[in-house]
């Protein structure tokens, strides 16, 4: 029986991605370690994403608070606004929105950069220069994305909560200390731990998909564009799938 073309392509992609991930783990812990390139990528991926992540985090907190408030007023529980906003941002909205923005910025840039290097033979040039291009280009970028996204999420959550504090104070007056005391009163270990764990998984998936699409880019500049685009689409979908899986696993562990 002949499988439909689209389904075969899906299986090909899944198989290729799995092998690529296996290659990552087989090479990650073997010398030579590319620390200089890793630090450089941490700077590019992490530090350079700060303004975008910070801005979106601030707006996210502000808008969420302003939209939640009328509903809570109806039930007379507007005093619970800091608690609700805190839980929503730390558990779900902060990690997921930051990961989606990260996928758009970093996933596409990794896909385009490696894709362009592939079609202009720069990856081959690296190999003949005595460099393992997989370690130099892929391992460093995936590790940097995995390490930087959790840090960005923590920063984004913090800025987002600050935005929420301003949002609360637009319609009422709440002190800074009272607002954050209420936020932290609503957060427990079971809220923070799964949120942190999933950000590592999001970062890994975004870095891996971007590298896979770029490293296997074909058909010239058109292929580079397709790689960048599909890196964003696939990693965004993966963010939601991982989110769903982490929720299920943490529920089974009694952390929800």
């Amino acid at each position: 029986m002949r499988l439909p073309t689209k389904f075969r392509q899906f299986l090909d992609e899944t198989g290729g991605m799995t092998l690529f991930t296996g290659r990552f783990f087989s090479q990650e812990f073997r010398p030579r370690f590319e620390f200089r390139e890793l630090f450089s990528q941490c700077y590019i991926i992490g530090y350079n994403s700060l303004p975008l992540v910070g801005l979106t985090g601030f707006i996210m907190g502000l808008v969420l608070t302003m939209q939640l408030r009328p509903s809570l007023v109806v039930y007379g529980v507007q005093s619970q606004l800091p608690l609700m906003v805190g839980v929503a941002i730390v558990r779900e909205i902060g990690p997921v929105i930051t990961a989606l923005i990260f996928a758009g910025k970093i996933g596409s840039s990794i896909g385009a950069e490696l894709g362009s290097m592939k079609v202009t033979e720069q990856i081959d040039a690296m190999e003949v220069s005595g460099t393992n291009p997989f370690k130099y280009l892929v391992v460093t970028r995936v590790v940097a994305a995995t390490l930087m996204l959790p840090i960005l999420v923590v920063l984004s959550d913090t800025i987002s909560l600050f935005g929420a504090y301003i949002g609360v104070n637009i319609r009422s007056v709440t002190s800074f200390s009272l607002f954050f005391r209420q936020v932290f009163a609503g957060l427990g270990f079971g809220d923070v731990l799964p949120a942190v764990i999933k950000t590592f998984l999001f970062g890994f998936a975004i870095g891996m998909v971007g590298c896979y699409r770029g490293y296997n880019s074909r058909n010239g500049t058109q292929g580079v564009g397709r790689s960048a685009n599909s890196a964003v689409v696939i990693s965004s979908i993966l963010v939601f799938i991982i989110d769903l899986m982490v929720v299920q696993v943490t529920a089974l562990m009694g952390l929800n």
Partner: protein
Amino acid sequence: MEPVIVIEHVFKRFGSNVVLNDFNLTVGKEENVVVLGKSGSGKSVLIKCIIGLLRAESGRIAVLGENIPDLNHDQLDRIRAKVGFLFQSNALYDSMTVRKNLEFPLRRHWFDLAQDKIDGMVKEALENVGLAHTVDMMPEELSGGMSKRVALARTLILKPEIILYDEPTTGLDPVTAREISTLIVDIQRKFHTASIVISHDMHCVKIVSDRVALLDGGKCYWQGKYEEMEASGDPVLKQFFE
């Protein structure tokens, strides 16, 4: 002439498309061999098999006495330090300056070189191609001919014994193409390198070749001097002059 590259009975295919079929060629020390062939005949595949970027399915490719298909990654790296490769697209790292492009292979092969030594080698390599003033430029600021020369400087910086040129004059105007062809000959004379030059530019072939090998149907169809090729009545050879 002592051989530095010996290719025997090499077979390579992509799916059902056979590219190299029992290909044989020998390159001697300090010899420039031009591999000529039509587009898509497998010339670039051949030199990528020689440097180990592609793996031949069968046959022997001995470079400086080592059979390339038998080597592991570390052994390949040791051979690659002695074999330069000039890519058709130049393959300059576009995120790095010319200086960083030239430093890259040095730092990968010789970890403990002092910075002043590296600076001296970069300067010397760029002077060899007449572009010492471009050291702090980005690849995007270079013209096609300058990019080719910088890529050649990057190839020369490790002082290779063999250089593989993949269509070095493609995309260049006739004047620049002639300059690059002359530069290839100058490099051979100055550094005593052996070379395989992939080309279908007959002006380049005439200037750089000590010997011409014609790749046709996956085999080495003909070998000889450029003048012999020009005088030949063989229709396959004659079509390159038409």
